[in-house]
């Protein structure tokens, strides 16, 4: 068996004196059947596992069309105080698909941020930027206050206390032909009120946060 230990090994099973060797074959028939059987099992399993997995993770990559929803005539809203309006984020599932937004007219004296130029109405989402509980506007304190963990935001939705990691989200607004204010898709803002595609609560957008929490693959530019 000296040829077994030479540096150059033959590729033929017969030369390597393997059990079940045949003339001119480089793979034993047993090994061929084992690998073939496992490959067939792998293909059979993958043929139902991959589609099922794709089905389950598919919604992550789906892009939902933008909805614009009328919330009332233009004279319903003032420059100085918020009016709560109920909008539908997900249609056809009743109360679970609805949310509250706080809307007021653009006020050049307060809304000095360059990103808000040309926005006819400011619409602040009631979804807390900490973990998503519903904040409410407290008129006497001129603050948005979250009931769950004590997040507090100022008139512009910027965090002034508690655990939230960024200001309250906003909605795009426009006025339609019949003089009604319409709320469009949601967007998130960082502490300088710079706009980002919508992020989930609890995801900071300042500094490294905007890279640590990437935007949704299906998010569309307005």
């Amino acid at each position, binding site marked *: 068996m000296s040829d077994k230990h030479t540096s150059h090994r033959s590729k033929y099973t017969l030369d390597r004196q393997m059990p079940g060797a045949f003339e001119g074959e480089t793979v034993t028939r047993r090994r061929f059947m084992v690998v073939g059987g496992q490959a067939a099992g792998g293909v059979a399993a993958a043929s139902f596992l991959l589609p099922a997995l794709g089905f*389950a*993770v598919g*919604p*992550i990559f*789906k892009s*939902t069309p933008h909805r614009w929803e009328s919330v009332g005539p233009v004279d319903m809203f003032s420059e100085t105080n918020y009016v709560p309006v109920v909008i539908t*984020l*997900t249609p*056809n*599932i*009743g109360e*679970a*698909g609805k949310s509250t937004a706080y809307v007021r007219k653009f006020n050049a004296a307060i809304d000095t941020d360059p990103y808000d130029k040309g926005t006819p109405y400011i619409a602040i989402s009631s979804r807390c930027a900490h*973990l*998503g*509980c*519903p904040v409410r506007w407290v008129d006497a304190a001129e603050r948005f206050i979250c009931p*769950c963990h004590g997040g507090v935001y100022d008139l512009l939705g910027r965090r002034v206390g508690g655990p939230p990691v960024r200001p309250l989200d906003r909605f795009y607004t426009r006025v339609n032909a019949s003089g009604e204010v319409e709320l469009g898709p949601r967007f998130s803002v960082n502490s300088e009120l710079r706009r980002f595609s*919508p*992020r*989930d*609560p*609890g*995801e900071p957008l300042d500094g490294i946060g905007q890279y*640590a*929490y*990437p*935007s*949704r693959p*299906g*998010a569309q530019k307005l």
Partner: protein
Amino acid sequence: MPKLPAPPLPQALQAPTPRPGEGEGNGKATPRHHAAQAGTSVVDWVDERTSLSGGARWLMFRKVPKGTNWFYTLGSATMFAFLSQAVTGVFLAMYYRPDPSGGAYESIRYVTNDVFLGQFVRGMHKWGSSVMVILVFLHMGRTFFFGAYKYPRELNWVIGVVLLILTMLMSFSGYLLPFDQRAYWATIVGVNINGTGPLIGPYLSDFLRGGPEFGATTLSRFYAIHMLLVPGLIAALIGAHLYLVAKLGTTAPPWTRAEQSPELREAEA
């Protein structure tokens, strides 16, 4: 390898000794004799075709170390809590409708108020989930403080940790199903806590919700995870956990000492 003697059968399963002039005594079996033997015959018939008794004996009649005490029952208690959850859950699923536009809450209200024993069975499922979580932690504490996670039982500890995580996932996914205000907002908060993980967090929360917002399929997604995906995994892992317990045996309590031979004790002295 020497064969262990078979443990004695309980009195009820033993073949009665035939009286004189009865049964095999005169070569004729009476119907009464057959009836008395029926249980043993059925067990024998199955065992002859499956050899299950060997496995059952291997699993049930194990040698346990001296000092084994009530703390060693916490694992079984956890398993029975899981079985209770499984059985009550199956019957609750006969009434439950995962419909977010009011049907889910209504079906739970119907089970609680109108179905015979509905409040009781739902209560068992609801409180039983807390009992199971508490028992899991007590069992884990027993394993830790008795040092039962050490070689060669590390893999069983790892399986146990996966079971703990799956139990938590069961509690989380089941909490949404009553679909009242508490269920809804607790799930919103819970999903968003998942979303705070860097890089994968946003994808994880989208996967849980089935989209960017709480949507039409979020409830049915949680329902499928709660009653199909995770219970299947838990049942399979409990099987692996029990197999390893039976194969490796239980550990002696840490305060017991190995018995020393008198000669060795003298040699040491």
